[in-house]
């Protein structure tokens, strides 16, 4: 166990956590964070300024600000006196055994622990003030970074109390401040990370500069997972400025005095890769294999089975079925993979890395370096986009091999083409949905089968044993609030050699599209309004009804639209939040254009309202981009789309003319916000197109199928 006293004696600060406090950021290279050293959420220095060690990565979703306002309100401190940095991995920052940012957990998981940590600090400061003034601690309140003793009209700044407070034991059950005292939570608060980003300050991993740093550009296989067969460094070394070629797993790093020379060297390098079993794999083959999985009853793994689906289909007066397909997607963060590394004089390897998964990165670095994890320091920078791509540590080994070979500071980076071609995509997937309709024209059974590669098999370090269910492949299907008398969900595994990772909202993107588009087709079959069909299937669930009723009302569902325009609705629950969207769509020169999107989001309660709106807008635009245009086509065992010329992200001129957000604070358990607004937009737009053209959208992206 650390030595909290020793640390505190050195820093003179107050640190609070559930366990023994030591922020890893305060550990020095000569005393690296390690077993027995645990970390804390916040430190208060002698000037009364707070450093918040956030358990999350800030990648634009605003959790650092969310955490800062929670702390500021509980401490009674002006927000500008809270500085936030991402902690290094250790127990107080872990969920389920590891530290990472995903699953839209950033605010909902840490809201209460951080409040409690701040309340502990506040009570320790109050106790110190009580000793100093000889009055009961209960008589103090906090205001503007000071303990206030109203009866005697005296105030003491936090900073002046830290030396005494740090000798006290944190209270186990501190009292939280009442909601009425909050100044920031629930208000429109400017994000703490925005000014530096707008001024162009060096906040990203690609901006980190270390003394004597060189630059290393990777050259990697265009075929997934291919190993190096042979390499001739001479043509690379002939490029002016190139210093060295270093073999790394799956390729080489070309080292130069500047990025440009390193890139040119990497392009000049003569390198051959071994052939693989999938050298001829292409999208058509993958699609065929997935679709044949839809017929493989014997291989289907059941995810849910309510009622008697078979009986309902036997007794049905008619049935309806449709197959759908969604492609591989690239996360395409705007910052290609980069990482700056330095092996210090004491043998500690530092990585300034854009990481969503600190433990995973640290373990990967330790393994690649042949060092114990205690000798790896992960400095998490702000991320130039994550969306799940930076959960994968696949870029770490090459960076570490390079740094260990050089022994000098190095900025290691991939070109955009490698960022996009190395995979870790949102899985491609197909689905078959079937409905049984009884003699009264009611849905008597729904059956959903998805087929495709298992995200868990590719992404999870331990893989996914055969016969086990891949959660992502049935996400939002097995746990939907829709209710039919009989309901079955199963999945057929169709492995592919294409690396995959969670992509913002994960399985909810494909599965939300499948189910929500099927419902609109089914409504057409039944001669019902799609909104009314959803109301029937959700009739038992007041919370869900409120969400779809809210969006219908705000969007003017059923009211006339200009000629050539139609509405589509979709409702998807993911990451603890219920989200419904209505899109208004027309065709412009034969291509879908989205005029207006209305979103109703029930995320329980809200910490940063403008942050929620920002995530709703971003999720809708990103989801629309994917729906309209995005797909990674596979050819020759690798990605055919490796840069923005053919992987065409949505641009501003094609983005919706308006996005309106209605936040529903139902008071239920706080839900996530980063991901839930994304899944409904693809089916909402597809359903609008179906309403407009009469042609269902059974395959994404829409640009493939929707032109008329």
């Amino acid at each position, binding site marked *: 166990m650390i030595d909290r006293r020793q640390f505190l004696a050195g820093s003179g600060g107050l640190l609070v956590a559930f366990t023994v406090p030591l922020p890893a950021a305060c550990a020095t290279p000569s005393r690296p964070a390690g077993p027995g050293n645990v970390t804390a959420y916040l430190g208060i220095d002698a000037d009364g300024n707070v450093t918040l060690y956030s358990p999350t990565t800030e*990648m*634009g979703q605003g959790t650092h600000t969310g955490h800062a306002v929670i702390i500021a309100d509980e401490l009674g401190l002006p927000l500008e006196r809270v500085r936030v940095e991402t902690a290094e991995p250790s127990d107080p920052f872990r969920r389920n055994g590891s530290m990472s940012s995903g699953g839209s957990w950033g605010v909902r998981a840490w809201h209460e622990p951080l409040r409690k940590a701040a309340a502990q600090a506040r009570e320790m400061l109050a106790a110190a003030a009580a000793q100093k003034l000889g009055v009961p601690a209960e008589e103090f309140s906090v205001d503007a970074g000071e303990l206030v003793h109203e009866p005697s009209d005296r105030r003491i700044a936090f900073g002046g109390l830290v030396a005494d407070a740090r000798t006290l034991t944190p209270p186990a059950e501190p009292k939280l401040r009442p909601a009425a005292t909050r100044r920031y939570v629930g208000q429109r608060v400017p994000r703490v990370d925005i000014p530096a*980003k707008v001024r162009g300050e*060096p906040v990203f991993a690609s901006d980190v500069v270390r003394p004597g740093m060189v630059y290393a550009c990777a050259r990697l296989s265009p075929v997934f997972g291919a190993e190096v067969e042979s390499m001739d460094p001479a043509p690379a070394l002939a490029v002016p400025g190139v210093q060295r070629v270093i073999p790394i797993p799956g390729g080489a790093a070309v080292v130069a005095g500047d990025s440009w020379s390193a890139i040119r060297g990497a392009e000049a390098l003569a390198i051959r890769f071994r052939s693989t079993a999938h050298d001829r794999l292409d999208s058509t083959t993958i699609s065929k294999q997935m679709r044949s999985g839809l017929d493989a009853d014997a291989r289907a793994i059941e995810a849910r089975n309510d009622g008697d689906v078979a009986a309902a289909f036997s007794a049905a007066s008619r049935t309806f079925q449709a197959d759908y397909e969604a492609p591989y997607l690239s996360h395409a963060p*705007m910052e290609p993979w980069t990482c700056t590394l330095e092996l210090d004089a004491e043998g500690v390897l530092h990585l300034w890395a854009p990481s969503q998964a600190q433990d995973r990165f640290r373990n990967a670095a330790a393994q690649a370096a042949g060092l114990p994890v205690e000798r790896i320091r992960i400095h998490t920078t702000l991320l130039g986009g994550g969306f799940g791509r930076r959960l994968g540590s696949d870029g770490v080994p090459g960076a570490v091999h390079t740094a260990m070979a050089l022994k000098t500071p190095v900025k290691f980076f991939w*070109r*955009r083409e490698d960022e996009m071609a190395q995979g870790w995509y949102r899985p491609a997937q197909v689905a078959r949905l079937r409905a049984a309709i009884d003699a009264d024209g009611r849905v008597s059974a729904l059956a959903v089968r998805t087929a495709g590669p298992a995200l868990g098999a590719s992404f999870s370090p331990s893989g996914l044993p055969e016969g086990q269910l891949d959660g992502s492949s049935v996400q939002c299907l097995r746990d939907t609030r829709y209710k039919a008398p009989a309901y079955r969900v199963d999945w057929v595994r169709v492995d592919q050699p294409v690396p995959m990772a969670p992509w913002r909202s994960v399985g909810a993107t494909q599965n939300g599209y499948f189910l929500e588009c099927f419902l609109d087709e089914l409504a057409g079959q039944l001669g019902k309004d799609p909104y009314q069909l959803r109301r029937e299937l959700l009739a038992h669930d007041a919370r869900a009804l409120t969400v779809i009723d809210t969006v219908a009302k705000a969007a003017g569902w059923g009211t006339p639209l200009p000629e050539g325009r139609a509405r589509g609705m979709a409702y998807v629950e993911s990451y603890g939040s219920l989200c419904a969207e209505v899109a208004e769509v027309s065709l412009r020169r034969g291509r879908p254009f989205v005029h207006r999107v209305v979103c109703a989001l029930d995320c329980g309660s809200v910490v940063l309202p403008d942050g929620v709106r920002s995530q709703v807008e971003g999720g809708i635009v990103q989801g629309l981009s994917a729906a309209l245009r995005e797909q990674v086509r596979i050819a020759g065992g690798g990605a055919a789309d490796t840069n923005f010329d053919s992987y065409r992200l949505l641009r501003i001129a094609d983005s919706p003319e308006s996005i309106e957000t209605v936040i529903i604070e139902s008071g239920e358990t706080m839900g996530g916000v980063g991901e839930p607004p994304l899944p409904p937009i693809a089916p909402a737009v597809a359903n609008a197109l179906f309403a407009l053209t009469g042609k269902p959208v059974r395959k994404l992206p829409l640009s493939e199928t929707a032109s008329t």
Partner: protein
Amino acid sequence: MKIECQVNGEARSFEADPGMPLLWALRDLLGLPGAKYGCGISACGTCTVHLDGAPVRSCAVPVATVAGKQVTTIEGLGGDHPVQQAWIELQVPQCGYCQCGQVMQAAALLARNPSPSREQVREGMNGVLCRCGTYPRIEAAVLRAAELARRKEGQS
């Protein structure tokens, strides 16, 4: 070769391969990392800077061609340029990686057209990608920046 040019109002002289894109010269040789690498093929706009006042994709501009010219990067925009003010007021960035390019594109757009219509903003900003999906705020912020700039103009 030796390159001499003005960068953010200062005379700079440095050695560089003539074919090196301006982006890498700014980032690696001149210590100005505001312009970002996104694609290397002038398809994303994260590297946008001004060359003699016009927005260019610095990843596709050989540094030899900037000799004798004026380069402005986000570091030279001043920090309280109307575009930057509007960007903070409307809380535009999410991850922020593309935003230096967005801000520089917007500043150039407004320099040429101080009162753009909404459609002109959407057209003028179309070359700069944002993966986080901040387009609705970018659009609003460019219009707001135009307003702030006009107000400032009116005062001076």
